């Protein structure tokens, strides 16, 4: 993995290996918050930001602390604690310095702690043995990829309101089917660039 450039990983994380459409991470909030474009834009931005920051922090902690002291089996609990603490910190910071942004993002920030895409990005980074620059590229790409996917679903669901959907498929099932079609479309990118 070591020779792949961070740029390639960045592109791959958005298109060919989209964290949502190929790895199914962050589905809960993806389905719950994709009703409106405005909401999903707020959530997408927040996720992308938190994801890139927590990948960097977790990379540092994993390589500087956990590996050195042989505490690798504690990675889950350490990562989730870092993510929760970071989200809390961002929330306080934004509240103090930009109340306007706080009201725009405020409700989404606590949601992010339980977003599995964030923890998943950190775990993928460890499993695929990325270097530091690769991790930054991956975190940024995965975050943007997630935001792109939720925005597309929100746009499609807004249109869906005017369509006639069979009764049992209303709501979540049809959203799943749409996501499946989206995933198929994204499969068209396969082979453009490839990471493991």
């Amino acid at each position, binding site marked *: 993995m070591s020779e792949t450039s961070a740029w390639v990983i960045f592109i791959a994380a958005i298109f060919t290996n989209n964290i949502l*459409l*190929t*790895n*199914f*991470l*962050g*589905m*809960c*909030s993806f*389905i*719950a*918050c994709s009703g409106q474009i405005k909401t999903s834009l707020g959530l997408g931005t927040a996720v992308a930001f938190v994801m890139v920051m927590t990948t960097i922090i977790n990379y540092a902690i994993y390589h500087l602390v956990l590996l050195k002291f042989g505490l690798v*089996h*504690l*990675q*889950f*609990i350490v*990562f*989730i*604690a870092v993510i*929760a603490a970071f989200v809390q910190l961002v929330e306080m910071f934004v509240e103090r310095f930009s109340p306007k942004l706080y009201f725009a993002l405020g409700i989404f920030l*606590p*949601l992010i702690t*339980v*977003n*599995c895409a964030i*923890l*998943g990005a950190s*775990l*993928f980074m460890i*499993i695929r043995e990325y270097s530091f620059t690769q991790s930054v590229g991956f975190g940024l790409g995965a975050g943007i990829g997630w935001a792109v996917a939720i925005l597309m679903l929100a746009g499609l669901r807004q249109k869906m309101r005017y369509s006639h959907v*069979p*009764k*049992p*498929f*209303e*709501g*979540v*099932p*049809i*959203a*799943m*089917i749409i*996501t*499946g*079609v989206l*995933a*198929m479309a994204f*499969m068209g990118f396969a082979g453009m660039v490839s990471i493991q």
Partner: protein
Amino acid sequence: MTDGNQMTCGICRPKGLCGGRGLVTLKEGAWANNPLAIQILGICSALAVTGRLENSLVMGAALIFVCVGSNLLVSLLRKYTPHRIRMVAEVAIIATFVILFDQFLKAFYWDMSKQLGPYVGLIITNCIVMGRAEAFALQNPPMLSIVDGLANGLGYAVVLAIIGFFRELLGSGEILGYKIPGFTEWYTPNQLMILAPGAFFALGIVIAIFNAIKGPDPEEKK
């Protein structure tokens, strides 16, 4: 408590939990309020690991273990946990059980651990476990919480097994890795079912079937 729960996940809304005792609790979790098909929780892993039936079964077992364990511990500690830090306490308890299961897999079933990859660790952020700890174990005695954890874990595991069964059958024409004699002679396995889109289609259809059997939800009719 229900309101707080709604905040964390957006779709967690435990219906009619009030009179739950023993059998009722079991039925609630495993069928009427199935965490996966009715409440649409924890779908990330449901999509990711169901390409093969074997993986689905292991994942189901993992969730039953974690759910029962964390429900028991949260319930035992419920009178000593300060309300304000209960979330952190719950996450720490859940993470402990997930680490236990992960270490177990790594020690005895290395191949399986490799295949499931990050999804074992992601049980921590699986809303089902957190949702049950928050909505049930915090208010109920230990024994009942075990039943509730078991019921919800089972409900999840069964749906996972159903999806895994059909995806493996249609995607590779095998069950648990064994070829079915004569099946592939008239059916050409459709690779799409193993890939990502197949997962979305399969789960969408399963939820739709559950909806159709259950009939319209009176709460959602506006």
